[in-house]
Every structure is written in C-alpha cells, then in structure tokens.
C-alpha cells in the first residue's frame, strides 16, 4: 500500500519513513504541502497520507482542503501530524477534511494502529464503490446480453442526435431484429434462444467502433447507433454487421444454429431535426420493409419527399437494398 509522508523536517521524515517501510508500506516522502497535494491528486496517487500541520508552501489543513476539492474518484485517508493540542486546533484540522490526527512525536505502535484504521476505512470504501458500480451496471444494462438496456440506449441516442444537430453531422440508427427467432425458441428451447441473443450481442459489439453504441431494444430487437457515420457509408456498415451475424452459425447448448437478422437504417442527415420517437418509428418501418422483402437484408428509411422513396413499391418511406 502506497503512503505519502509530507514533512519539511528531514529528521521527522526519515523517522516516519523508516517505521512505515518496516511495516510494509510503499513510502513516498515529500518536504512541502504543494508537492503533497500534487502527489495525492494524481489518479493513481497514494490513498493514505501523513501530513505535518506546519509546512512551507501549503500547510497540512490546506493539503486536505485541496485534495478533497480536486480528487473525486477515490477517497484519500489523511492524518494530520501536529504538536497542537488545543480543541480549537483539532477541530480546525478535522474541518479541513482530515480524517484523523496524531500528536507529535508519534509512538510507532499508535501510528501503525491508526493507519490500520485508515486501511479498514479505505477497504470499506472500495467495497461500497464496487457495490455501487454493480448496481449502476444492473440499472443500465440488459442482464442477458450485457448491452445497454432500452432506456439507456434511447437516452444515449437522444444525446447523440442533439450533438449531431448542433455540429451539423450525421448519426445512423440501425434497428435489427433476429429472423424467425420464435422458431429458435420453439425448436431448440429458451436456453438455446438465450445463447443466440448473447452471441448476436457479442457480434454486434465486435462489428462496431469503440465509440458506437449498441443496446437491446426489445426481445430479439437490437438498436445500434453509429456516431458520425456519413450516410454514404451507413448502408455498407449495416451490411457488414448483418453479414457478421449471418455468415457463421451460433454455437448453443443444443448445437450450432444458423440465424440471420433484418435491419432498418436511418441517417439523421436525411431527416433534419426530428424527435427521437419519430426517427425510431421510421427506422422500424424500414426494418419492416426488410422483413417484407424476405428477411436477412437491410433497408434505408428515407423521407417521403426524396427520390429514393418513390422508387420503393414495398413500403413508401423505406428503400430496400439487398
């Protein structure tokens, strides 16, 4: 465990450093408060600190205040070292953000015991953060596929579209549905159906860029948001993703199953500023066009006024390409 010692007095620093090294700590020793704050505010900086109260540049309480203000991600347990013994001083030190204080000169056993208390608190904090992150993940992700759940992917889509409108860019929505998925469940059972959905989720994620978004939209429906994807390339991207699913069978507990997906896609640049619900409705219509055209294909949603829409006999607002 890394620990920071900040003391302007060489003798005191040396004494503490030796005691703590002997107790198994990885010691970083600095001679003023400014250096201490810099070390403690680094993302991977020490999470335990012994700070002398009176130091040049920045005193111990000043370091505590700065660390509490700047380091938000992980907690730092800070102990002030002081020869001040008045209640007012102690209250002032603790109010600055220190967790504990020790009167100098420190008894080695008391020092180590106080640090063990600090370690227990840090351990507890780590467990709480881990539990919070688990809960956050469960609240935002689909439990079967670990993709973003419907609420989150729609929220992220809304933000992405707002950014796109602001920057006059283009975002592509891709709505995919597993073809004949009911047959998979009916023929091979729900466990095999779950295997299929999990593998499709993996393939979708592997087919997009790190800054694209993939979510489970419904039962066997998936929504992919391709950020900054030019309309010219959107269809080719959709087809790549479709082939990534169709080209290889899925290994399930009931053996390999061949599945395909149909896609509807919409490029925001074709539609101007429209509500998310409206764009999703049009993307869904394009997906329906793909289903109607025999499945395992992709269709582009186009505004009714566009030339492409007039060429479509199957579904007016969608153009189908296979």
């Amino acid at each position, binding site marked *: 465990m890394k620990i920071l010692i900040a003391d302007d*007095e*060489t*003798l*005191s620093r*040396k*004494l503490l450093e*030796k*005691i703590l090294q*002997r107790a198994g700590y990885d010691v970083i020793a600095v001679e003023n408060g400014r250096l201490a704050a810099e070390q403690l505010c680094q993302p991977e900086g020490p999470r335990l600190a012994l700070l002398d109260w*009176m130091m040049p540049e920045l005193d111990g309480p000043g370091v505590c205040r700065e660390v509490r203000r700047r380091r938000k991600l992980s907690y730092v347990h800070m102990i002030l070292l002081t*020869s001040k013994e008045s209640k007012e001083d102690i209250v002032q030190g603790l109010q600055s953000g220190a967790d504990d204080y020790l009167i*100098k*000169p420190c*008894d*080695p056993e008391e020092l180590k015991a106080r640090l063990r208390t600090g370690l227990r608190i840090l351990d507890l904090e780590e467990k709480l953060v881990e539990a919070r992150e688990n809960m956050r993940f469960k609240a935002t992700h689909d439990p079967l596929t670990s993709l973003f759940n419907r609420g989150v992917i729609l929220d992220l889509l809304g933000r992405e579209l707002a950014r796109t409108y602001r920057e006059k860019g283009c975002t592509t929505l891709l709505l995919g549905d597993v073809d004949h998925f009911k047959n998979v469940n009916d023929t091979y059972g729900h466990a095999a159906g779950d295997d299929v959905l999990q593998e499709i989720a993996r393939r979708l994620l592997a087919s997009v860029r790190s800054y694209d978004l993939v979510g489970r939209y419904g039962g066997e429906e998936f929504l992919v948001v391709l950020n900054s994807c030019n309309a010219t390339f959107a269809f080719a991207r959709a087809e790549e993703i479709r082939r990534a699913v169709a080209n290889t069978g899925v290994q399930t507990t009931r053996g390999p199953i061949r599945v395909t997906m149909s896609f509807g896609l919409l490029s925001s640049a074709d539609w101007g500023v429209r509500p998310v619900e409206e764009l999703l409705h049009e993307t869904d219509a394009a997906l329906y066009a793909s289903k109607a055209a025999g499945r395992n294909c992709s269709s582009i949603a186009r505004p009714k006024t566009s030339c492409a829409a007039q060429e479509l006999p199957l579904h007016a607002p969608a153009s189908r390409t296979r």
Partner: protein
Amino acid sequence: MPNPVQNTAGLAVNFAELLERVENDHELLWDLLTIFKRDFPRHRDSLIEAIARAEMKQVESSSHALKGMFSNLAMTRAAAAAAHLEQMGRNRERAGLEDALAQLEHELASLLPELDAYLKEARR
C-alpha cells in the same frame, strides 16, 4: 553500538524513549542523530538572529523547527524550552526572550555533550 539505556536518569536525552521510538534500530538512531547534528546549528543560528532582531514570526518558526527535532529525539527539556520560545514568538511577547533563549542554551549545554559521547561510543 553503545547501550544508552543504562543510567539514563537525569540525562538531557531520554534514550530509553528514543530507542522505543526507533524500534531499537540503532542504525536509524545513528542516522537521526547525524541529521540532527547537521541541521540543528542552522535553526539555532536562525533563532538567535531572530531574537537579536526581534523578528517574532521568525522566532516562532525557528523555535517550532527546533521543538520538532528535540521532541522526535526525546530531548524533553530542550523541547519544552523551545516550545516556550515558540509560544512567545506566536504571542509577539518580546519581554523575557533573552531569558528563554538562555534557558534553551542551558539545556543544550548538557544535551550536546551527551550526544557527542553517544556518537563517539557508537563509532567504536
């Protein structure tokens, strides 16, 4: 290394307490005393100069530094004398400064030979 714990009654350095503080690490004790011998004169000179010029803020900080060194090395009486000077500096209390310094010097007069004797013995 000498065994400084024997016959410590009345000494300016409480070696029993000091050894406990360094967890009986004689090598560390030697290092600390060497640091003290190196750094102490600078703080002492700074204090004497501050008193001569009646720079009370400097009196406070030099005394504080000395108090810290004395305390760490279990030099209890010298630490108390330095603490008194620090308090006077903090309170901007000029009257009696010379007497307080004399008290500290009196403590040092017995403390420094004790340290030299220990270091000399340890060197053998």
